[in-house]
């Protein structure tokens, strides 16, 4: 179906919903690369005007990627909750934006609505929103998840402690873990990106993390971020796996390029659940996503990268994850060229994830071939903190020496806590106080070589 609008005395026409969505997207290099971006600034705004008049219902009948060709489309369509959708069923995309910004769209109302929304609806409305709209609405969304602690409560922000090491040296990893814990990081997860994909090495790392968490009674969870099949393999061998990780994307073909299917994810979740390792809840999955992956894998079907990304959250949502994060600037300048595009994408991803009911965090990051630096990361961290981001990453000095990119540091999370008064997961916060690492106000205290956590170094 063709979409038309007259703007500025010109008749603009868009061949279908997919093209309309792509051309309505704020400019980014990945859509230009894919050849789906608007050809002028004027066309982009005309597309937004046209998109504002599209009924939300249209997304239930006009699939951007054919139902028959893609299992993510099937997942989205088959799991759509028509009852939950009813309160907004009569709205256009533009009306939906206006409504979201009113008090009527309260935290409770948005929670009840989540399963009635499809990723395409959420992506569409985000395209009509300014950055401040993305922040205002996202901060109303409350998504709370649990494993050994409670993540996502109002006024809190968790941190993934990311102690990567270039060749998985356990003492090196332990040093980063100790440093991070001393900075009060690690409530989202202590999660290692291993350099190796060797099962014996991964198992060894899992045992190491399990030992640390249990020896010091830390109310948090651990994860080795390896392929889901490796995690399943470890669980079958009796290795203590807390969270099962997988990178996922919004199309079947892209997931295929990751070597993953929805059935594998189901199997991974079942395997993790069978261990019953959570103490306060059973959200056992950890997913990472990022704009541009579908195009990179040749699996985008002509759909713009932001919409593809939102579809990935439908995949995540189906498996009740503990945490999900977009790795927003990791993929490089061919998809998000500079600080401006990375900031915008980070806010969009967080907004779309939250509105869909996903516990959305963000790896606020960039690579050295992008036109970005620490100042851009400060901007995005501040904006996401204001938007109520579920968690961010904590890497020593913001420099990941294994993955070769810059994320946020242990210091950065302290900065945003200080500016916005954000607390930690309550169980973890209480543990920090018990360990004498923070005072009653949550402020870090000084500590010496005799602090018990330093013994982690000897054990590793």
């Amino acid at each position, binding site marked *: 179906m063709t979409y038309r609008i007259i703007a500025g005395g010109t008749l603009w026409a868009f061949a279908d919903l997919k093209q309309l969505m792509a051309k309505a997207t704020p400019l980014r290099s990945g859509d230009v*690369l894919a050849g789906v971006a608007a050809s002028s600034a004027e066309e982009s705004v005309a597309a937004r005007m046209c998109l504002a008049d599209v009924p939300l219902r249209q997304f239930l009948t006009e699939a951007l990627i054919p139902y028959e060709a893609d299992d993510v489309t099937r997942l989205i369509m088959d799991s759509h909750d028509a009852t939950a959708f009813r309160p907004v069923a009569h709205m256009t995309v533009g009306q939906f934006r206006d409504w979201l910004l009113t008090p009527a769209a309260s935290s409770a109302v948005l929670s009840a609505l989540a399963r009635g929304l499809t990723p395409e609806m959420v992506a569409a409305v985000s395209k009509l929103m300014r950055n401040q709209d993305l922040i205002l609405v996202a901060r109303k969304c409350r998504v709370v998840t649990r494993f050994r602690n409670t993540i996502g409560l109002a006024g809190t922000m968790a941190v993934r402690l990311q102690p*990567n*090491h*270039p*060749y*998985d*040296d356990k*003492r*090196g990893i*332990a*040093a*980063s873990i*100790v*440093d991070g814990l*001393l900075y009060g990081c690690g409530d989202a997860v202590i999660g290692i990106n291993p*350099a*190796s*994909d*060797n*099962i*014996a*090495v991964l198992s060894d790392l899992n045992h190491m993390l399990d030992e640390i968490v249990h020896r010091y009674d830390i109310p948090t969870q651990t994860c080795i971020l390896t*392929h889901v099949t490796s995690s399943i393999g470890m669980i079958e061998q009796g290795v203590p796996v807390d969270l099962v990780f997988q990178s996922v994307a919004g199309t079947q073909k892209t997931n*295929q*390029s*990751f*070597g993953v299917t929805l059935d594998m994810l189901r199997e991974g979740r079942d395997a993790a659940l069978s261990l019953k390792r959570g103490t306060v809840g059973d959200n056992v999955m950890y997913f990472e996503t990022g704009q541009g992956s579908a195009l*990179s*894998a040749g699996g985008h079907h002509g759909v713009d990268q932001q919409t593809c990304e939102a579809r990935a959250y439908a995949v995540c949502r189906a498996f009740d994850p503990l945490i999900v994060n977009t790795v927003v600037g990791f993929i*490089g*300048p*061919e998809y998000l*060229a500079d600080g401006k595009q990375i900031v915008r994408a980070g806010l969009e991803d967080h907004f779309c994830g939250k509105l869909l009911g996903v516990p959305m965090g963000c790896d606020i990051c960039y*690579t*050295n*071939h992008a036109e970005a*630096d*620490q100042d851009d990361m400060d901007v995005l961290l501040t904006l996401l903190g204001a938007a109520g981001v579920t968690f961010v990453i904590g890497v*020593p*000095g*913001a*420099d990941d*020496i294994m*993955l*070769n*990119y*810059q994320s946020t*540091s242990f*210091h950065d999370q*302290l*900065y945003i*806590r*200080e500016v916005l008064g954000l607390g930690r997961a309550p169980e973890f916060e209480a543990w920090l106080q018990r360990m004498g690492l923070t005072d009653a106000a949550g402020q870090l205290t*000084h*500590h*010496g*070589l005799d*602090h018990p956590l*330093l013994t982690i*170094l000897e054990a590793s």
Partner: protein
Amino acid sequence: MAKDLAMTDAARVSRETNTVLTALTDARVGLGRVGASMPTAEVLKFAYAHARARDAVHADFDADALGEALAAIGLESVSARSAAPDRMTYLRRPDLGRRLADADRARLDALQAEGVDIGIVVADGLSATAVHVNAVPFLAALLPMLRNAGFTVGPVAFVQNARVAVGDEIGALLRARLVLVLIGERPGLSSADSLGVYLTHGPVPGRSDAERNCISNIREGGLVPPLAARKAMWLVSESLRRQLSGVALKEEEATLIGTAAEG
């Protein structure tokens, strides 16, 4: 000293902890803090490292010097370019970096009609510096192992402004049973010279990343080239024996990784 007097006991013991941590990893642990923030010296060190990495991204690929070094260990080489005409285009157009310039395609096709077991591609990727430093030591260690095992090796193809997938096209042109792509990885702050090696069995344009095996972070201070070569040799042998690569070929040689620190 006034400086010592200004330092509280608490700050001093924290500094002792930091010294213990920094001895164990190259990660930026134990930086200390001023309030919530990084001390001035650390902020500036970080900025300097970022500047150096930025410069590595834009360094020129010196294929001539590499060609001479490889000739010395008995490897022929041939230079080619990707379809990306310049560095800035390369950075934003991965599609162009994944395929050969038209002129070079025909030239490579004529080189090796017989076919080989192993095709080798050396690409600048995102750090020509990494290739300049680590490609020759890696190949010098790998080549004797490949020859001892009786594998035939094609001429090394240097490709400027290239990405991993360019190896699919080159591997197919060389009629190689598998292709190894040595490529400069994204420079990090503490390593602007990290080399990656990607193995793809049955190279042909259109292979997906799940069909490759990767050995990353090859450099002094990371996975040292001789050890990386041993890992590559294992992967090559298993890949050719089982006739596959990628997720299906999990690396199982644990002992090699366990000795990474010694290598």
